[in-house]
């Protein structure tokens, strides 16, 4: 196990900057989620740690050793690929044993370690199957077992669950977390699915256009996203803008949100309430109901405020008495106001 650090990583492809001066530390034994839209550089960062991408400049540390000049095969990493990349000509046991075989570990020890790894991912009885005889979830487990059997210093996961259907994905998230806790390995995983990142990671980093724009504990980043991109990318956010004044933020419709110093604020959809009559809360707006969407336990109301779309999410029963169309009042408590830095 080891702490992973990258310092001032820069990687350009022609004109495009895939990594733009990224500096980040991944705690020993932690589960770190790299999150961002496609083209944000999250996969490039992962591949730079693995050694498949050679950065133009900057440093990569695994533990105390700097590895910029170490080839992939000498970095002692374990990696799970998006399509699992199981060797089609080998059985499950041979796949898992491959990393041991190339290290010249054979006989009893190899058999035992392969068995233990398959046990850990609960695939013991499948060791003689070929990859094409397995389901998606089982292949995912084989890929995990293969990546950890060599006792790597870091586990790198490249969108490991994106090929699975939703129900299976949630099962595998729990599974992944269990395995990671059990062996306590430093894990870095890349995803574009923010829910997945929030569920799995104890630290997340958000990338945009090759730059690391925010990192921290998921709860901290979610509750205080600081900028509009993070607010919108991590969960949903209603952005309300206006002009900053002495007493607070003067919104476009004239309402004053006191004690706010920035030019816009964000309010999470689950923190807004809709009432037919004007509420007592100082943070309230007049908006127009557009649509009410029933989706089982939770419902969504879509509203129009000054030409912007506002979403409100709540238990469907909480929308009792709200008209389907026409003017209503929106309100939220002071601590639900998120200040958004400009730019």
């Amino acid at each position, binding site marked *: 196990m080891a702490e992973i650090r990258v310092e001032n990583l820069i990687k350009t492809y022609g004109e495009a900057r895939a990594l733009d001066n990224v500096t980040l530390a991944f705690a020993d034994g932690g589960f770190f989620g790299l999150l961002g839209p496609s083209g944000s550089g999250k996969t490039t960062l992962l591949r730079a740690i*693995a050694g*498949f991408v050679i950065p133009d400049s900057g440093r990569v540390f695994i533990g105390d050793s700097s590895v910029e000049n170490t*080839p*992939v*095969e*000498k970095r*002692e*990493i*374990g*990696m799970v*690929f*998006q*399509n699992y*990349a*199981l*060797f*089609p*000509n080998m059985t499950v046991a041979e796949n898992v044993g*491959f*990393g041991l*075989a*190339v*290290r010249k570990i054979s006989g009893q020890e190899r058999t035992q370690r392969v068995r233990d790894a398959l046990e850990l991912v609960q695939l013991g009885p499948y060791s003689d199957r070929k990859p094409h005889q397995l389901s998606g979830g089982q292949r995912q487990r084989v890929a995990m077992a*293969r*990546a950890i059997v*060599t006792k790597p210093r870091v586990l*790198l996961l490249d969108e490991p669950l994106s090929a699975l259907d939703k129900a299976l994905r949630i099962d595998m998230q729990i599974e992944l977390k269990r395995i990671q806790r059990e062996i306590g390995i430093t894990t870095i995983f890349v995803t574009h699915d923010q829910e997945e990142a929030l569920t799995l990671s104890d630290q997340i980093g958000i990338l945009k256009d090759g730059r690391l724009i925010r990192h921290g504990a998921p709860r901290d980043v979610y509750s205080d996203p600081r900028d509009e991109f993070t607010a919108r990318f991590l969960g949903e956010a209603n952005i309300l803008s206006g002009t900053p004044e002495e007493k607070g933020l003067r919104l476009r419709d004239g309402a004053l949100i006191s004690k706010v110093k920035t030019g816009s604020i964000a309010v999470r959809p689950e923190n807004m309430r809709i009432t037919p009559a004007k509420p007592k809360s100082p943070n309230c707006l007049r908006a127009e109901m557009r649509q009410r969407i029933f989706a089982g336990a939770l419902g969504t109301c879509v509203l129009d405020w000054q030409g912007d779309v506002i979403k409100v999410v709540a238990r469907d029963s909480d929308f009792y008495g709200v008209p389907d169309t026409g003017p209503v009042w929106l309100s939220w408590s002071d601590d639900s106001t998120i200040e958004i830095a400009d730019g």
Partner: protein
Amino acid sequence: MSNRFLSRIGLLYLGMILFFLYAPILVMAVMSFNASEFYQLPFSYSTEWYERLQRNDEILTAAWRSVWIAIITTIIATTLGTSAAIALFRYEFTGKRVLQVLLFPPIAIPWLITGTAMLIFFFGVGIGRGTPAVIIGHVALALPYVIVVVTARLSTFDRSLEEAARSLGASAWQVTRGVTLPWILPGVIAGGLFAFAVSFDQFVVSYFLAEPGDSTLPVLIYTAIRKGFTPEINAVSTIIIAISMGIMLLAARFSNFGGER
């Protein structure tokens, strides 16, 4: 016009192609079993020409030489060609595109010209004529075929398999042996069979590069025909055709040559 009519025309067309391709070969094969030396009919079955062939040391020596030259050519061309195909697949380097494009023209250049060029070149650099020159020439002719066939197979190979193997600690050679080669093996076998066929059936380049005393089978046949035609030639040709077709059918089995099955 109905579809049925069109498909009948198609069938007729296909039938004619197969007829003109195979009829001469069939006539030759049949005549190799005809007792008459002058193709006289009615046909009377005989294996005389095959028996005579067994006693014809000249033809047997040439046949044996053709076989082992083809085997050596196959080994060298398959090894070099497969390595080249893997290198072209795996690495980016300057001039890669130019190199890839330059692989194809030799297939289209008439062998007569290639042969002349090789003869002049080999004399220029001091290799001269002889069996080594023949083998070098055959390898050069077979190489593009191997590279093309193996590259076609590699295009179905998932690159992340090599990355996965490297992430597990495998060296370049361990990756190739454990992961890449098993996947491209059918292509390598097909490429090898192509190389064998190119060498075994080669006339022009062998004719230019072989010393008069040690001709390969096709060269010997050509010389024999000029002296006077005997049905023994039919017999030996029938054997060559059987071998060549066998090889090509095998190659088609291993590559997807001629479409998906």
